[in-house]
């Protein structure tokens, strides 16, 4: 009679090794990121004050167009645009793209800024849904509004790229808040190295809990809700560790769609944002890498921590789950769309490290981790794994997670010190520990759900319910 127990043990061993292997690979990636990010910070001088930046770069700062796609943003759009128009930058225009909103977004803009229909010739370099009208403001020369048929965020951004005339453009979400000097700081690499710099990303921070008035973050505070606090630590890890590290070795694979500055000519050359993409920001950056390497041109895609963009984090599990599954689908979509770049020597570090990172962290990461949650206890119950090993490995996984989070807090403290009080630091330390017990597992479950939706070719975005950042709020 066939002995199944041997086969089960063999299968369990293979699975265990897969989980351990993927875990070790992730560990190695995080360790590498930490070392490179720490090195990058040690080489990076502390930043100059805003007043000095203006004095120093004001005369040579290149023109920038701020592209703001807006879909059903009637609640905040006028105040958001006011805050964008008040940015401290010598030469910029704001182009709001009303992406076929079903609410009163356009009407609010027309009333708020005394808009009139305007003809502005533009290059039809990228395709997008038809534009119904262009509007200029009687109140300011800096503002243009593009009213177009609904086509999604990427489609709206492409329309904005067509209409803008500046050599650089900055994409920003309609409900985000830029620090007044964010553009000036983001433009710095384009001033210092204008020939090679093609894209620059800044830090996205969570504004929940902060005091916001007149479209400005007046007082930085930590969110009061635990779910938002978890995301604060998560964002610090993502931006101050991962992006800083990959930027240092020119392998940055993502410039956030919530705030990124791009050179228009290169974006047009790669066909703009990919329509219908779940991760149109990552998609664009990968296309830029590929284009520059294919054409054998020297280039830099940089992340600089100082320009800060504030955004609202979801405060309900339902909305957060939707956001995370969408991000996961976006990462998978990009990975499989450009899979030929993976480990392809032609694409050097981007192919090996950049794509290797996506493979390990985004493609295999959630599956192996969720398998670990299910199978490791099961193996222990079946007697395949000893209690000692179970406890030891579990403790190592958690303490390592805590250590990585704490290291990102160290980087934040060394570089930005955005949280004003020592108490905030203590709270974040506690959160960095707690997030490993529950939140991290939940996140991985959402990411596996994202995998499932990707396999089922589910293209829905889901609704991002926001309570709104602008206006007095605590």
């Amino acid at each position, binding site marked *: 009679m066939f002995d199944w127990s041997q086969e089960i043990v063999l299968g369990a061993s293979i699975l265990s090794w897969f989980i351990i292997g993927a875990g070790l690979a992730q560990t190695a990636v995080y360790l590498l990121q930490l070392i490179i990010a720490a090195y990058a910070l040690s080489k990076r*001088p*502390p*930043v*100059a004050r805003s*007043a*000095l930046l203006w*004095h*120093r*770069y004001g*005369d*040579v700062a*290149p023109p920038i167009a701020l592209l703001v796609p807006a879909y059903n943003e009637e609640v905040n759009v006028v105040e958001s645009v006011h805050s964008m128009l008040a940015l401290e930058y010598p030469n910029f225009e704001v182009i709001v793209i009303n992406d076929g909103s079903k609410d009163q977004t356009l009407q609010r803009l027309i009333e708020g800024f005394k808009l*009139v*229909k*305007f*003809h*502005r*010739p533009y*290059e039809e*370099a990228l395709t997008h849904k038809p534009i119904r009208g262009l509007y*200029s403001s009687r109140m300011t020369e800096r503002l243009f509004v593009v009213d177009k048929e609904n086509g999604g965020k990427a489609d709206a951004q492409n329309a904005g790229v067509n209409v803008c005339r500046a050599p650089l453009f900055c994409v920003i979400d309609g409900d985000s808040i830029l620090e007044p000097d964010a553009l000036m700081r983001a433009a710095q690499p*384009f*001033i*210092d*190295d*204008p*020939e*090679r710099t093609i894209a620059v990303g800044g830090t996205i921070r969570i504004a929940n809990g902060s005091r916001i008035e007149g479209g400005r973050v007046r007082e930085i505070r930590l969110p009061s809700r635990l779910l938002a606090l978890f995301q604060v630590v998560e964002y610090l890890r993502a931006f101050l560790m991962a992006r800083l590290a990959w930027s240092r070795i020119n392998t940055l694979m993502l410039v956030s769609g919530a705030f990124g500055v791009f050179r228009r000519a290169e974006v047009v050359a790669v066909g703009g944002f990919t329509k219908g993409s779940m991760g149109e920001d990552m998609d664009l950056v990968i296309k830029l890498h590929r284009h520059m390497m294919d054409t054998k041109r020297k280039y830099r895609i940089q992340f600089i921590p100082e320009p800060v963009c504030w955004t609202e984090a979801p405060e309900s599990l339902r909305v957060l789950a939707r956001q995370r599954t969408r991000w996961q689908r976006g990462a998978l979509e990009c990975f499989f769309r450009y899979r030929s770049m993976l480990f392809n020597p032609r694409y050097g570090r981007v192919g090996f490290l950049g794509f290797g990172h996506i493979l390990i962290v985004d493609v295999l990461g959630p599956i192996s981790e969720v398998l670990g949650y299910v199978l490791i206890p099961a193996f222990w119950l079946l007697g395949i794994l000893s209690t*000692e*090993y179970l406890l*030891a*490995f579990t*403790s*190592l996984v*958690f*303490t*390592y997670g*805590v*250590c990585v989070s*704490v*290291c990102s*807090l*160290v980087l934040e*403290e060394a570089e930005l*010190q955005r949280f004003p*009080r*020592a108490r905030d*630091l*203590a709270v974040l*330390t506690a959160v*960095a520990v707690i997030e490993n017990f529950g939140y991290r597992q939940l996140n991985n479950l959402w990411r596996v759900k994202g995998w499932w939706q990707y396999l089922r070719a589910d293209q829905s975005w889901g609704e991002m319910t926001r309570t709104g950042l602008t206006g007095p709020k605590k």
Partner: protein
Amino acid sequence: MLYIWHLSILLSALSLAIMLLLIVRRVLQERRGTAGADQRRLLLTALIAFTENRDREALKTALLAVPARVAIDAGFEFISLLRGEEHDELLSAFNECGLPTLVGTQLEKGNGAERIHAAEMLAALRSENAVANLLSALDRDRSREVRIAVAIALCDIGALPPLVVTLRKIGVAGQRSRRLIELFRRFPPKRFDELRDYAGRQDAVPFIRAAAIDALARAGGFQFGEFFARAAGDPSSEVAAAALRALGLTGHANAPAILIKAMENGGWDVRADAADAAGRLGLSELAAPLAQLMDDEAWTVRYAAANALRSFGQKGEQVLREIAASDVSRRQRTASLILAEGPAA
């Protein structure tokens, strides 16, 4: 097995110890920060009082009563707001308190951002040793951003070494920074010949040559018309485009012929700048080649050509209207768009 446990304990202990240290450090910083803000406020009050009563001794007492770093920092921003006699007297007070010495040390030993700031402050304070300190930094500083800032500071105090030497010291990698445009714009008119000579060097970085031409043109360098005319035929499209922009500002007797030739250049930026220059100079006799250019494959060129035609007034608009009324083509569409530009009827 024991190793795994030890590693776990070590990681958690390390994490918590680091965070504890950071929290303690932050508490201390908070206290220091409050004291620093108070000192800054006191000094600013004294500076404002000085502008009213001109009591230099009282100001010097206030300057010496706060840490030198606070005095320099607050003082630099304040100095930049003043002009004339007040400005000079304030500088004297700063120099008599020996503050520039500290700035010199900062230029030598600070981090990158501090060294750049120190160079700017030395230029503002104009102390005795400023030139020596800055020249030494231009020679020795390891950061090209700092070297560029030092060169700008030296230019401001009229002590910039010859341009060739300065650029060599800045290094090739630094010769692509837009900050150099700033340096060239601050160039003293009596040294414009240096800029022209450098812009004419075929072995120099095209970006630098173009920036030098732009600076010369912006400073009203009509005497360099011949040079711009020659540079318009430069093999580097970046240099040629800059020369055409310059010609558009200064004009030249032979401009029409130069621009017609440039409109056939292989570089789209050269063609666009040629069209733009024709518009700026109001060379309505170039209407025909500009109309041809409206068929160009590059939108920027088409737009520049149509804009140039429009800037000619009635004659140009007539040409545009005729093109707009012709059969559908690239130029017809461009003409229609440019004629419609502006508030909708």
